[in-house]
């Protein structure tokens, strides 16, 4: 969350500001109006339209991106604040043609209908499982309560997130291999 660019900016009134950051591993430099949100810069100036804008004031969660691995509302951040930040958008999750496990799990669960909200739900889930790889159903529900979906009634999305927990634990601990906890002789449930 602490962007690396420590440089100050003198007063800019009604003008533009130069921003350098990393988006999906690629260095990005843009000149933009100071009042522009990070979400608008990602969509309109960088051209990554996978970040969706629903409410534009922090309620719906559709615009969620990862900054240094943490979920953040990109509509509630000025692009100027993200100067120097390491940003991941929905376009940065898949590895070539291979889905990220959370994307794969959501796909398998047929989690979404119109999918307008999907980038936000998926990135929020990625951030949650990064923090809590074995998140429980309640934890998933609580975390995803900050994202709105107007199609599904949420159950399919929660199913998808639960599937993602399974899929990622299989990837981390392939069947037949002892888990780190088992190998060290410690129980993981205490």
């Amino acid at each position, binding site marked *: 969350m602490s*962007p690396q660019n420590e440089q*100050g900016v003198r007063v800019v009134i*009604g003008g533009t500001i130069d921003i350098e950051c990393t988006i999906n591993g690629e260095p990005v430099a843009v000149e933009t109006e100071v*009042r522009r949100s990070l979400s608008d810069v990602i969509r309109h100036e960088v051209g990554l339209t996978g970040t969706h804008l629903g409410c534009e004031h922090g309620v719906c*969660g559709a615009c969620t991106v990862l900054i240094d691995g943490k*979920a953040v509302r990109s509509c*509630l951040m000025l692009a*100027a*604040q993200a100067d120097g930040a390491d940003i991941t958008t929905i376009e940065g999750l898949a590895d070539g043609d291979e889905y990220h496990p959370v994307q794969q799990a959501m796909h398998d669960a047929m989690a979404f209908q119109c999918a307008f909200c999907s980038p936000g739900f998926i990135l929020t889930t990625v951030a*949650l499982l990064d923090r809590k790889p074995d998140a429980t159903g309640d934890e998933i529900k609580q975390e995803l309560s900050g994202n709105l979906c107007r199609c599904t009634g949420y159950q399919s999305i929660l199913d998808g997130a639960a599937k993602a927990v399974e899929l990622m634990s299989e990837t981390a601990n392939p069947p037949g291999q002892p888990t780190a906890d088992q190998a060290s002789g410690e129980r993981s449930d205490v």
Partner: protein
Amino acid sequence: MKNPKFGYARPTTLDEALDLLASSEDAKLLAGGQSLLPVLALRLGSPDLVVDIGRVPGLDEITLAADGSVAIGALVRHAEVEDSHTVAGYAPLVAAAMPWIGHRAIRNQGTTVGSIAHGDPAAEMPAVCLSTSAVMTAVSARGERSIPAADFFDGFLTTALEPDEILTKVTFPPWRTGDRGAVVEQARRHGDYALVGLSARVHVTDGVIDEAVLAFLSVASTPVRVAAAEESLIGSAPSTDAYALAAEVVSNNLTPGADVHATANYRKHLAGVLTKRALEQALMSEVAA
């Protein structure tokens, strides 16, 4: 909506930030932005100058003093407070408030001190500050001063901060043996503004309550205490009857407003229910450090 036009500056020292703040009639500080940016996006405010203090050094620490008090700097994110062992151990009521604040994505960016400086009566931290007798440190070019939480929240989104002052840190006094507390609220959806909430702290000596603070959110233009209910608890042993009496006094004394989400009577009733719930939670568990 899109933000209105404003000037932007990003100082890298506190002195520079103070100069910038004093340089404009209508400057606004930006830390995490989770309160300011919705205000801008909805065009409820249109400052001349936004002073982004995000890169000012020395404001991003949680510090534990020798006496057990915990100070939270202006740039510490809610999520950092939520994950802090220091806060969990030495300022448990602050830790208890964190899961109620918005959602994790909001807490990753929003700052705890920023939420206090914003002075939203529906926010959790102002009520927690009241119930813990937190002390605000305000700095301006004229110097530094301390403001007790009881004198800080003046009105709706209005605090005792002068326009040229920055709230650099908030200090929570030591959590003593015998202190018990809970933060509870009811919202239509977790993370939404609470219909009613409260931060309760009681102190128990030899099985008797000798101090009680009940600070409510979302019931007035500032966080408010209900002195009569607090007094009703003093001298009682923790018991269902004592909680029920305090709850009744709360319901009778609060004068919340009505809106599309809840009537005033519903809020009064809810405040009583939550009072009982908070006291049960506080006095059942050993949250004392």
